[in-house]
Structures are given as C-alpha cells and as structure tokens.
C-alpha cells in the first residue's frame, strides 16, 4: 500500500504556521466581525442606560430653608427618598433611605433615635453609621448643597462609604 503524503499548504517545511494571503483576509474578517459585535453591544448598553426625570428623584431637589431643620433632628423627604439629618453641631447629611443590605426602605424610628431596617434588623445612627449588621456598610449619602440658607440635595449622585467621617457633614 502506498501511503499518501499530504502537505498542508498553510504549514511550511519547518512546521511553522504560514500566514497566507487567504487566511490573513480570513483573520481580518473575524476581526471586523468582533469589532461589529462590540459596537452592537455598546449600542445596546447605551440604549438601556437608565434615564432620569427632571425635578423628580434623580435631580437636584430644593428641600427648604436651614431654619426649618432644628439641630438634632431627622426629617424624611419622601419625594427624594432620603432623610435630611441635622446633627447636634448643626451639620447636614442627606441619607438615602435604601438599606445597604438588600435594598429595603429604612425608616427612622424617632423613639429610639436610629434607623432600623424592617427586613433584616440592620441598624444605623443619625449619621447613617452602621450600628448592627447584616448591612455591610453605612447608609449611602446624597451631596448636600447649601445656597443662601436654602438646603438643596442632589439625588442623582449616590455616595457610598465604608465608615462615617466628619468630612461627609455639610455646614452652612
């Protein structure tokens, strides 16, 4: 029996793969296909990007004059989904009501002076600092802007933090 020898034209005599014009063009096709797929993927992601309505949760909300909030008080701002906490030293924090554990809305329990999550009993003090797990970190904040004695809160920016830090407090 005669054994047929077969020489792959894409492999040179010393065994290395040759790049021929044919498979070079093939690779270009694959590359172009990959770029097209990336573009389409980017398009879909951009299309799916969340939009935010003006004047509603997600925009800058005007909350009211500073004097409406006595020091040592925590006031719910329902349309902004946050609590405006004025600390005893007069500083402001806008605390997002969404629990950092599993997203429940955390009410501020006035009688105990802290936030207590109804879902898994995570607790936070009036600065949003974590008192009791299972939540992994303090409640998130929104930036507070004080202009001409009026408190405004930017609900479009969620600030997550690992610990409470005095630099997070905004003073008039």
């Amino acid at each position, binding site marked *: 029996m005669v054994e047929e020898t077969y020489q792959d034209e894409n492999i040179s005599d010393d065994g290395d793969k040759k790049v021929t014009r044919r498979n070079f063009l093939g690779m270009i096709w694959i590359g172009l296909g990959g770029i097209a797929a990336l573009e389409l993927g980017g398009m879909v992601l951009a299309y799916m990007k*969340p939009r935010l309505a003006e004047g509603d949760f997600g925009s800058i909300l005007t909350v009211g004059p500073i004097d409406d909030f006595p020091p040592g008080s925590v006031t719910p701002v329902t349309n902004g*989904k946050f609590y405006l906490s004025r600390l005893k030293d007069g500083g402001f924090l806008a605390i997002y009501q969404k629990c950092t554990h599993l*997203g429940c*809305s955390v009410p501020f329990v006035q009688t105990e002076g802290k936030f207590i999550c*109804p*879902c898994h009993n995570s607790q936070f003090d009036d600065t949003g600092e974590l008192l009791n*797990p299972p939540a992994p970190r303090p409640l998130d904040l929104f930036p507070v802007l004080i202009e001409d004695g009026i408190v405004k809160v930017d609900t479009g920016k969620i600030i997550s933090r690992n610990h409470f830090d005095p630099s997070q407090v905004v003073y008039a």
Partner: protein
Amino acid sequence: MKKPDIKIPKRTFIEHLQDSFRPEKLPTDDRGRMRMVLDNLIFHIHPPKIPERTLRWTYTWGLGGISAVLFGVLVVTGLLLEMNYTPSPPQAYLDVIDLRTDIWFGDLIRNLHHWSGNFMVVVVTLHLLRVFFTGSYRPPRQFNWIIGMAMLLLVLAANFTGYLLPWDQLAFWAITVGTSLISYIPVAGPFISRMLLGGPEVGSQTLLSFYSMHISFIPIALVMLMSFHSWKIRKDGGGLSIPKGLEEGEMTEVKKVTTIPHLVRRELVCTVTVLAILFVWSALVSAPLEGIANPDVSPNPAKAPWYFMGLQELLLHFHPLIGAIIIPGIALVALLLLPFYDSDDQSTGIYFRSRKGRYMTIMAVVWAVVLVPLWIILDEFVFFWTEWLPGWSPLISNGLIPLGIVLLALFILDRVSKHWLDSNYEERILTLFSFLFVSLVILTIIGIFFRGPGMNLYWPWNMPSAHPV
C-alpha cells in the same frame, strides 16, 4: 392497454384536512404505528420504538413531560393575561384587580398561570433530582445535562420576572430584595443591577423591562432549548437511560416496544391528570395579592420569592458576598461540571447507584436534618462573629470564618463516608450532593415558615402577622 376503471371516491374539504393530521384509519400493526410516529409533526419528537423498561412510571415519574405540559398551560394563560395588562404602575395593579373582579374567569386564568409557574419550579427541580439519582447526566448525555441547567435558570428567571408584574407590595419588595443580591457581584455588580432595574431602585422602568423579558425573550429561549433538549434525548445514547436493578450487570438485550400506543397513551393519561389537578387547585386556591406597591414602606419581614428563600436564609448567616455570590456560584459550577468529574456510567440507570449508595443517601438526609437546624440555632443565639471580632472586616468575621467552618464540616462528612462507611468515589459525590440539596430544602423551609418580623425565628403556629413599621 385499457386503463382499469377505478373509482376515486369524492372527498370533502374537511376530509382532506383530516387526512393531513391523521391517517384514514388508525393503524393496528406495529409497522403502521411506527410509520405514524415518523409522519406526524407532533409525534415525531419521539422515536418510533422505545425500550420497554424506560416506560416505567417509577423511573422517570414523567417529570420532563409534566414540565412541558405546564409550559403549554403557561403560554396559553400568559397570552390571555397579556391582553388585559398594562406594564406600567399603577395601572398594572389596577388591571390585576380588574382581572379578579370584573373579567369572566380572569381570576381562574391568573391562578392557573400563577400555580403552573410555581409548580414548574418544583417539577423541574424534581426532574433534576431524578436525572441526578439515576446517573443519567453521564456521558453520552453530558451535553443535555448542561442544556437542562440552562433551562432551569431560565425557568427561575421567568418566574422571577413574572413575580413583579402584579405590582403589589409582595411583588415589589420580593424583587427589591432579589435584585439587591446582584449588586454584591464583585466589580460589575452595581452596574448590572442598575441596567436591570433601569435606575437605582425598582420602578416603572423595571416593570417594563421585566415584562418584556417575561413575555418574549425567556419563553422563546425556553422553546428553543426544549426542542434542543428533546432532540438530544434521541441523539445521545438512543433515548433515556435504561433502568436497572441493583444486581443487574451489563444490559445485553433491550426489549423495544412501539411508541404508539405504549408511550403516547401514558403521556395522555399524565397530561389529563396534571390538567385536572391544576384546574381544581386553581379553582380552590387563589394566587396572593397584597396592597399596591409602596416604595417608601417595606413590609416586615420582606421576603424574596419562595424559591430564593434558601438564598436569603444563607444571607442571614454570611456576608452577602459569600452568601449570595460565592456559595451559590460554586454550587452552580459544581453542578454544571458534574458529568465531567463523575463520568463512569457503570451504575447509570440504578437509582442511588448501589445498595451502599441508598444507605449513604439516607445518612446524608439525616445529617442535614440534624446539622443545618443546629447551625442556624447556634448562629442565631450563640455565634456573634462581628461582636467577637470588632474592627475586623465583616467579610472575614461574618464571611470567611463561618464559610471555613462549613467547609470543614463538609470535609469531615466526606472523610467519614470514605473511611468509616467505606464509600467509593461516586457514592461520596452522591452523599455530598444529597447533603447539600437537603440543606437547601431545609434553609428554604426555615426561610419561608420560621422567619417572622425582623427575620427573627418563630414557630410557624406562633407567627405574628406581617405589618409595616
């Protein structure tokens, strides 16, 4: 030559139409019956002949077929529900109220859809167990196992997206809790969660995207994978794995019977039974519906859909990264790769592998029933990792340390089954799987029935009613 004078009987249009669906006369011989299977669009998903043993009811329990029937019910009732539903708050909730009060049979159709969807989660899980315990995932059926796993995830996704649609308190908070798990995926988590929800929280955008996934992408993907799955049953190993008794060795001769009537008759009986149970159940038991969703007031307790309660229970004991991502992730990958590290098909077709395997399965169930509640009670009342180790990252104190203890326990159980109880490789895998599966069931039961306000432990008969704080 003169043409023979044959009279062709005149046939009506209706008769022609009937002919294309069934032969003029039902065949009575094997040949004709096999022909009928091959020539018919519906029947041809079956082979013309099948091994007689695979007909055993107690081998397959008809679980694959039952899920297909439930899927059919879901498509029909789903289509009807769609015609009376607006995927936008608050109209979505008002539409569901209308369905219950103003529309003929609206409540029945909603109940049928709800219960079929929930039964489906149970049935496909049992199907997975059947395939596991008979070793039917092993080569040559390994690829169909992976398709099956993909379908399991799609069934869960279908159920989860459907859960939000009534837009009541139950739906809203279950989805809030469920999707919050996603944001714990390292690096990409918050981004994925934002994309999925269409914003920082569950809202009208979430309802619309869940609705479109629920009525188009997921069912279409399921239909495609179902076709693939049934085609693969015939292609891999020529049909189902063949049931074997304990002491039976290699099967030499397989007796085959025709699909019509043997299999088809059983399928009809099964379908009619499932439909009857489903209708009676749906007529008697209403799908739950609470007050309209209120994003500012979380109910106490807020629970995920029931099939994720095992996961939520894990979260009470581990840091979210460990409880929601790492443990389920490892379990899923281990399950997916099962046919590749447990591929010896000697015991395929024997329930629980061997006599020892049956013994070990019972052992595993007993271990899980004792150890899991014990762990939960200890973790609830004795272990306070974060208080014992103040200043440590909760990821270590409430995550890696308890995880390490659980892994150590699993390792010890495996050593015991290997050295003391003398199990071989496949029996050890069987033992671990049974232990972990029963653990998941126990966690789920505790999560559903034993967790009350503040996610504290209560006896089910002592449970305070849920109320907003």
